[in-house]
């Protein structure tokens, strides 16, 4: 309602503007017309004076008639002011009124110059009509007053010249003025109607303008909305493309990881046999035996192969982790010297650690691995030296950020940023850097597993890694690990005993892989244990039923056909509650290990293992 009233007021205001503009235009235009008319009338008066009464005579002598001079000078005087005002101040009320007065005075002059011809008196009525062009009834007033004053004054001073008699009635001028007013009345009505029509037109124009403005505003508004919607759509499309790309990348990495993990698992079984038998054989040979050095070469190769499979497992997030709540700043500080040695003297190591940094839960050795791999990668990107910057910070990844980054959950994170001022990399390289065996280094200089390992460790630790790189400027890796609100734990050191841990207990060995089973049995027996061997779970249960003596420990593979290691252990407990259980597996994501973390209360040894590692672990479990 208020809006309608406001709009109505606005339309009236606009109508008044349009009306005034139009009226002013009419005033100015009519002023100019009168200026021209004044000039013409003046000249016409001069011509009339010369034509009608050029000379006056006194007997036989003549001279310029006195009418010529008023035609020239008085006509000029009457015309000059209105012409000047019309040219310099068109549109002013004072100009209009002056013109009205002048026009009637010129009429009086012309009537005189033409000898009072009745035809010339029509000039008065014509002038009034012309004045009505202004569409301002007020200009008729001074014009009428001039006519009335002319007759009134002449009636007083020169009555015969205007009324033809010496003693005219003193009210005779009213009759003359009355006829002028008679015309004024009609002109007034005509002006009123004309002005009323002008107002109506102005109102309609204002309404149309208002409608058009509203329409334009509406169109602009809609256009703006469409543009905004289009931008939003484009943004969503871009986000979706980015998300699809990230998803595609993640799926690719997942697939590659599974492949690598599967290969590594099979390799682990093989390496368990190779490394185990090599170790056993070396124990039985003297160092000067011709086979000793060859077996040592096999052992070394086996070790390197084990390292490779560990990296593959790390990438595929299948390696065994020992996560602890740790202070990342402290981990970096402790790695500082190693890193310094690793990157060499040409590269400046800058460390910017955030104070009051939150804690993360991760495997300290894996974090160390991450730092070293990234440092090596940075070093190789800066062959001529540069700066390696390691920074940490507390960050909060918002829902908005998470919406733009697939696999990111909103929450508090600890950021680890490793930046170099190296050669950087292009977009295509950026897309593939985490793929295993992808490298831009020369053949033999890199395994292509460094960044893959970093990727796998970060992912397995529940974090995310992003790379920002610009060719010629450098690269930054940003790792976000979930923040945990727990105090940091002290790191434990695992030292592997170099000697076989001996024992006399009875061990039930369950392994479906015959070669692994045979080798494991051999290690255990060499260490003094009595070994009961089973190919699968059912056989193991059968042995447990039939064996008269105690079974101190069951060493069982986890992944086996028909019955898995965990089920076997649960059923064994019902038969022999005193029997302890030690699992062994090449998988880190099975019935007892989830995402590389062992279920609570479980004992586990990861394949491939060395004879020493096995006997140590067996001894450790038996001693619990």
């Amino acid at each position, binding site marked *: 309602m208020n809006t309608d009233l406001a709009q109505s007021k606005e339309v009236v205001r606009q109508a008044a503007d349009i009306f*005034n503009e139009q009226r002013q235009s009419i005033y100015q235009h009519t002023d100019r017309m009168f200026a021209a008319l004044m000039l013409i009338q003046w000249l016409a008066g001069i011509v009339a004076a010369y034509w009608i009464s050029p000379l006056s*005579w006194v007997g036989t002598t003549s001279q310029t008639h006195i*009418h010529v001079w008023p035609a020239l000078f*008085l006509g000029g005087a*009457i015309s000059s*002011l209105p012409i000047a005002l019309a040219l310099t101040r068109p549109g002013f009320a004072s100009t209009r009124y002056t013109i009205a007065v002048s026009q009637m005075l010129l009429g009086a002059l012309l009537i005189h110059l033409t*000898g009072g011809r009745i035809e010339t008196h029509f000039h008065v009525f014509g002038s009034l009509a012309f004045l009505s062009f202004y569409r301002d009834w007020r200009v008729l007033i001074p014009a009428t007053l001039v006519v009335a004053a002319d007759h009134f004054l002449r009636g007083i001073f020169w009555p*015969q010249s205007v009324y033809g008699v010496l003693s005219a009635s003193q009210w005779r001028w009213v009759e003359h003025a009355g006829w002028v007013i008679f015309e004024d009345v009609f002109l007034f009505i005509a002006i009123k109607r004309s002005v009323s029509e*002008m107002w109506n037109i102005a109102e309609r124009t204002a309404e149309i303008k208002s409608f058009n403005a509203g329409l334009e505003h509406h169109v602009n508004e809609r256009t703006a909305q469409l543009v905004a919607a289009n931008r939003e759509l484009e943004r969503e499309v871009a986000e979706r493309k980015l998300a699809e790309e990230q998803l595609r990348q993640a799926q690719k990495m997942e697939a590659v990881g599974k492949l690598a993990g599967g290969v590594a698992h099979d390799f682990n079984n093989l390496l368990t046999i190779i490394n185990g038998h090599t170790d056993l054989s070396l124990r039985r040979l003297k160092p000067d035996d011709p086979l000793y050095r060859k077996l040592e070469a096999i052992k070394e190769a086996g070790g390197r192969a084990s390292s490779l499979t560990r990296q593959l497992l790390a990438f595929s997030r299948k390696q065994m982790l020992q996560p602890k709540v740790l202070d990342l700043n402290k981990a970096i500080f402790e790695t500082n010297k190693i890193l310094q040695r690793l990157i060499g003297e040409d590269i400046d190591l800058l460390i910017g650690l955030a104070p009051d940094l939150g804690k993360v839960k991760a495997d300290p050795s894996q974090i160390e691995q991450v730092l070293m791999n990234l440092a090596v990668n940075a070093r190789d990107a800066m062959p001529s030296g540069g700066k390696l910057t390691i920074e940490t910070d507390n960050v909060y990844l918002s829902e908005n950020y998470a919406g733009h980054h697939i696999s990111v959950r909103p929450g508090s994170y600890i950021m680890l940023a490793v930046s170099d001022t190296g050669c950087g990399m292009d977009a295509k390289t950026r897309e593939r850097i985490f793929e295993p065996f992808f490298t831009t280094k020369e053949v033999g200089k890199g395994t292509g597993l460094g960044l893959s390992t970093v990727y796998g460790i970060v992912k397995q630790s529940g974090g995310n890694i992003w790379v920002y790189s610009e060719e010629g400027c450098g690269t930054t890796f940003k790792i976000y690990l979930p923040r945990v609100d727990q105090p940091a734990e002290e790191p434990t050191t695992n030292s592997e005993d170099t000697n076989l841990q001996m024992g006399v207990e009875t061990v039930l060995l369950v392994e479906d892989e015959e070669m692994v089973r045979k080798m494991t049995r051999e290690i255990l027996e060499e260490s003094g244990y009595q070994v009961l061997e089973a190919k699968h779970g059912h056989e193991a249960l059968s042995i447990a039923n039939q064996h008269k003596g105690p079974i101190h420990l069951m060493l069982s593979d986890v992944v086996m056909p028909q019955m898995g290691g965990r089920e076997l252990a649960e059923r064994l407990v019902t038969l022999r509650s005193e029997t302890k259980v030690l699992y062994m597996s090449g998988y880190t994501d099975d019935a007892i290990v989830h995402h590389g973390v062992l279920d609570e209360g479980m004992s586990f040894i990861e394949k491939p293992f060395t004879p020493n590692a096995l006997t140590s672990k067996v001894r450790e479990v038996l001693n619990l």
Partner: protein
Amino acid sequence: MKFFRSACATEIDRPSQLRTKRGRLVLLVSMMLWLLIVGIGLSVLWNYESTPGASANPPALWPVESKIQRAPAHDTLVILVHPHCPCTRATIGELAELMAHCQGRLTAYVLFLKPEGFVDDWEKTDLWQSAASIPGVNVMVDDDGAEASRFNSQTSGQTILYDDEGRLMFSGGITASRGHLGDNDGESAIVSLVNKGSAVRTETSVFGCPLFDKNSECRKTKDKQNEY
């Protein structure tokens, strides 16, 4: 209502310069000066228009020496005219009206002055043609103003009326002012005298150019006659 409202609205848009006191004062003074000049000019003009020429002193009885044939049965009108006097054009115009009002009861003579030594047809101006075209009007040349002298007339447009017995009935002009057409006392008086035999006025002012030079013999003769 709309009309008056909108008419008032026009005053809103007056340019700001008009609002300055100095501008308004200059405009006001200019207009007052202009009105004064124009008023003075018009006053001078009106004064000139209303200033009559020298009045005639015609003989009370028709001068027998006149060469004009007086009408025996009705009134005779004599008008002395300077052929080049522009003011007399109004007199001829009024004569036409007068003759229309007195049809058949008035014989009119318009005598056109022709000074001695002037070229032939000097007197045959548009006034001659105009006068000649009026029914009942006779136009004649007044050589060297002899008739004007007989009728003691000095101003162009001098109109004199004699009755059918040669008695002077009216002397004056038949225009209200110099060269001005329109109703006037002279014309009204003549129409009344011719049609009714009486009139309120028998003399009026005459407006026109002097018929004779200031030092002409005619004038001197007349002036002497006036002295006597």
